[in-house]
């Protein structure tokens, strides 16, 4: 089943889906393992695995730190791929790679995508690769039946959203506000107007991320979006309270 169809089928049973995010190798692969186990057992629907990059331009302080420390501890792209393979063979939910384009480019875009396909990755979020620069990536993902998740921002015009949706697949990642990951989002009238514009621009499911950290946030999104994305919040939680805290946190979100 296509990712978008899977999401629609799951939405028939749940009011909103949860997508969580973690940085591979931070604090450690073993902590990642335990975190993911708790996420899946507590009903997370999709997981975004970030392959660390030394220049995470779109990320805020918490995720920058996670990227830097994972690299400083010696994590390699090859290990990230092995880890992802282990997760996809253990759990029956979609896993996505989130990373910056240089990781793909340096590996070889075609080789990277083929490898991702082979290890059971479903799709990709690459925040510094607009469709204008991504012809090879877009062509190959579609060819391989992988999903190049496209990103909408509050600054995207209606026309731009249509263009992006035309290149995308799986779902659309709607960035909730301007800025980088990690800080709070104001869910005000202009946010509602923005989401309404997103909804009008595409039939693909909508995920909303940036600044979503608690049940109240998820409640606000319920009925407006298909997927709530929890990023920095769980990374921070693991850092402050340890991996054991993840399960009840996730269970309490819906």
């Amino acid at each position, binding site marked *: 089943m296509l990712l978008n169809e899977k999401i629609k089928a799951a939405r028939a049973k749940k009011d909103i889906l949860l997508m969580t995010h973690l940085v591979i190798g931070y604090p450690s692969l073993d902590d990642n393992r335990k975190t993911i186990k708790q996420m899946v057992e507590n009903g997370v629907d999709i997981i975004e695995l970030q392959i660390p990059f030394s220049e995470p331009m779109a990320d805020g302080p918490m995720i920058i730190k996670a990227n830097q420390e994972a690299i400083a501890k010696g994590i390699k792209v090859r290990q990230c791929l092995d880890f992802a393979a282990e997760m996809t063979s253990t759990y029956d939910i979609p896993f996505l790679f989130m990373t910056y384009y240089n990781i793909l480019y340096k590996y070889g875009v075609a080789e990277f995508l083929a490898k991702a396909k082979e290890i059971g990755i479903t799709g990709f979020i690459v925040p510094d690769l*607009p469709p204008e620069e991504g012809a090879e990536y877009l062509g190959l993902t579609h060819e391989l039946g992988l999903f190049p998740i496209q990103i909408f921002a509050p600054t995207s015009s209606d026309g731009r959203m249509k263009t992006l949706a035309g290149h995308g697949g799986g779902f659309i990642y709607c960035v909730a506000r301007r800025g980088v990951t990690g800080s709070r989002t104001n869910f005000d009238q202009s946010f509602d107007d923005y989401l309404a514009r997103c909804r009008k621009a595409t039939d693909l499911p909508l995920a909303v991320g940036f600044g979503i950290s608690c049940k109240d946030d998820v409640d606000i999104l319920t009925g407006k979006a298909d997927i709530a994305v929890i990023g920095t919040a769980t990374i921070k939680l693991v850092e402050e309270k340890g991996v054991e805290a993840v399960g009840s946190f996730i269970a309490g979100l819906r």
Partner: protein
Amino acid sequence: MNKPGYFGQWGGAFIPEVLYETFKELREIFEKAQQDPAFWQEYANLMSSYSCRPTPLTHAENLSRHFGGAQIYIKREDLNHTGAHKANNVMGQGLLVKKMGKKRVIAETGAGQHGVATATMAAKFGFDCTIYMGEEDVHRQRPNVFWMEKLGATVVPVTTGSKTLKDAINEAFRDWVANMDTTHYVMGTVCGPHPFPAMVAWFQSIIGLEAREQIMTAFGRMPSRVYACVGGGSNAMGIFQGFLDDGEVELIGVEAGGKGINTGQHAARLASKDASPGVAQGYKTMFLQDNDGQMLDTHSVAAGLDYIGVSPLLTDLWEKGRVRFEAATDQEVMAALDLTIKKEGIIPALESTHAFVQAFKEAGSLPADQAIIINQSGRGDKDIFTIAHAFNDPSWKEFIRSKGEEYAS
């Protein structure tokens, strides 16, 4: 045909979606300015009344005699207002900011020259100003930090990554993606996403336009070689553009050889074999990175050259064989600096001195009826702490010690 924003296979605009409209506006305003002769006139007028353009071309007679070869000419960007070529780009972008109606500017800085130039422009045009600077550079270019703050800018020390120029660029982008409605990011060199490389090269071309005319007046014909240091590549592209179409003029870019090109502690992207193609900080070029695509720590005594990437325009010219690349080590730089000060009474910035090193290596092998030009991108005043330290200057140390005691009591 090249894709817009590409120079050969290098360049592009690898930007997050949230900046798509911002870049569209920037491209449009830049293209309009380029097609409007009145805009360039306004720019040139500003640079001649607020800064010292045209900057002189100095015949370095003593150095020429010392090496006994080619006539050495020095293009004096150190005499530009704020002490470096950086002001050319900054004042140009400042005029664009006025047209866009934005009220705040941000910038990255390595040596602090671009930061000082941006803070100066902001003071003159009435903009708010925030400068991002790697923590390591805040320490080694302290005089410029002082002046930026005096000029009313907020200087934010960047503590992520290697705490140098590339990290300052990341932080400036992080500010911009939150504040693009009110804020323009004044990129300081011919790098980053399109249209920055083309835009900065355009404003800096004023160096080459002048130098070409000046060497014809002073020497009567084209120089054999033109030398420029290369951090991101803006002063080099600036002067090279005056001679690109003259095939007989050899163009030489000099990168930071740091502790030596075989030590791994350098910032020689094109002069060493350590760099490979990559995409980071919004553009495609040759980066100093590992096999996974993680950027490496670079080293140079000159903060302004201590950078992982290099202009896509220069990478293209290098690939096509039009620009030759060399590297100068920290040690060679100190020796050339000392010589230039003693022989000519000129104090080049540590960055600029890299170009002097290579010119000095080659001048003696050229006949006396040929000329070479060195682009002196900036003045060395900002480097007083680093230079005094490198020369282990006893009276300077004594002065710092007594100042320290004075402030401690």
